């Protein structure tokens, strides 16, 4: 996927300004950066849920795209029905949905009303839902922000498994440098709406070139 001319302004303030960036298939990209650096806006503009200030170009090359927002909506029906919303073949996908729920350890909740789930459980259900869509490009906005450590590790395992199985491109926003270290093949560091530095996970997280990236990593590396 190639994205070009992603711009978003609120009044005079530019919150996103990316000229061009390309994502390769079969890789997990972690977008890191401080609050207000434009990470979520980046995903929203690609997903089309936020209207950009200028017409962007998102070249998908016949690939399908799905986006999981930070605030996941749980429809007032069962957990299983929520997950099955993205099913293309009800009979075939039912088993896969149950498998995902089991891997996220919420299969015992599948017949419960999803609107009664906790924040972490809702996020786990939303991950199952987005992976059931079988999309080639998956955008995740802080998917584990509401989760405890166990759920975070389960989610990370599912993300890796999905990538391996489908060769999908997974682009995720995270506040955790250590999560980026555990999951990402590539890391994108953003500041003031721009991509300041990007490259392989090892390269960016171990030997960043920009002083802003170094400063950010020093400050946030102690977090889980």
């Amino acid at each position, binding site marked *: 996927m190639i994205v070009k001319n992603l711009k978003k302004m609120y009044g005079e303030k530019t919150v996103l300004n990316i000229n061009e960036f390309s994502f390769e298939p079969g890789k997990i990209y972690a977008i890191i950066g401080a609050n207000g650096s434009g990470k979520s806006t980046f995903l929203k503009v690609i*997903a089309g*849920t936020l209207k950009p200030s200028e017409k962007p170009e998102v070249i998908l090359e016949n690939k399908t795209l799905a986006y999981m*927002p930070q605030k*996941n*909506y749980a429809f*007032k029906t069962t957990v299983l029905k929520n997950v099955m919303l*993205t099913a293309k073949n009800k009979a075939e996908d039912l088993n896969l949905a149950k498998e995902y729920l089991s891997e996220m350890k919420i299969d015992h909740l599948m017949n419960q009303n999803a609107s009664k789930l906790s924040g972490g459980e809702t996020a786990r259900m939303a991950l199952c839902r987005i992976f059931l*869509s079988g999309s080639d490009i998956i955008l995740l906005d802080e998917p584990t922000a509401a989760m405890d450590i166990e759920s975070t590790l389960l989610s990370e395992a599912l993300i890796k498994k999905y990538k391996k199985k489908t060769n999908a491109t997974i682009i995720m926003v995270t506040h955790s440098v250590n999560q980026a270290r555990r999951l990402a093949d590539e890391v994108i560091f953003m500041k003031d709406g721009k991509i300041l530095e990007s490259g392989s996970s090892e390269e960016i997280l171990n030997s960043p070139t920009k002083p802003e990236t170094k400063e950010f990593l020093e400050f946030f590396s102690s977090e889980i």
Partner: protein
Amino acid sequence: MQNIIEKAIELMLSHDSMLQNIISVTLRMCFSSSIVALLLGVPLGAFLSLAKFPGKKGLIVLNRTLMGMPPVVCGLICYILFSGVGPLRHLELLYTVSGMVIAQVILITPIVAANTETFLSSMAPDILETTKGLGLSRWKTMTLTLTECKYQILSTYLVGFARSIAEVGAVSMVGGAIVYKTNVMTTAIMNYTSRGDFTRAMSLGIILMLISLLVNIIVHVFSERVAEK
């Protein structure tokens, strides 16, 4: 007072044809006007909430202003439109239940639209972000949104129904409170009171209060369910 209430209850239990006719006309009018107002008000409220167009804020303010339109003003406008000198005189709506329903629809639709706009403005952004993110079709998004808001929609309908059944100004001007034709509970209470027939007025008052109580209980139960969800 006690004597009047006792007689009123006796009258309610008897099969008084005039009383039955008043209740029947009232319910026919209220159900018709509240359903039509719901069918018009929900799409209008959804449009005001979800569509982006110039002058949207002005239209929302105008709708909220219309919510507070005095019923007698609405009655006057309808009277002029339907009367012998009005542009809609050929429809012969003056002093008919249909004319009363139209007047009530004008009064209730802004209330339904404003309620719909309010609850959709708080619920729709999260729903739409999720459905768009998942690549669901517009049809699926619409059905999901309507299902999510079913209790709010029903609650809005009941608010419209309550407004309709309690309304007197517009229906008396447009309907004329003609016995066995357009006399509804509120106009009949006024007429019986002015004639000194307090027993009949009180009977209708009790029935009206019972219906209002029932509507309010239903609204309350649904509001609780919405709060729980």
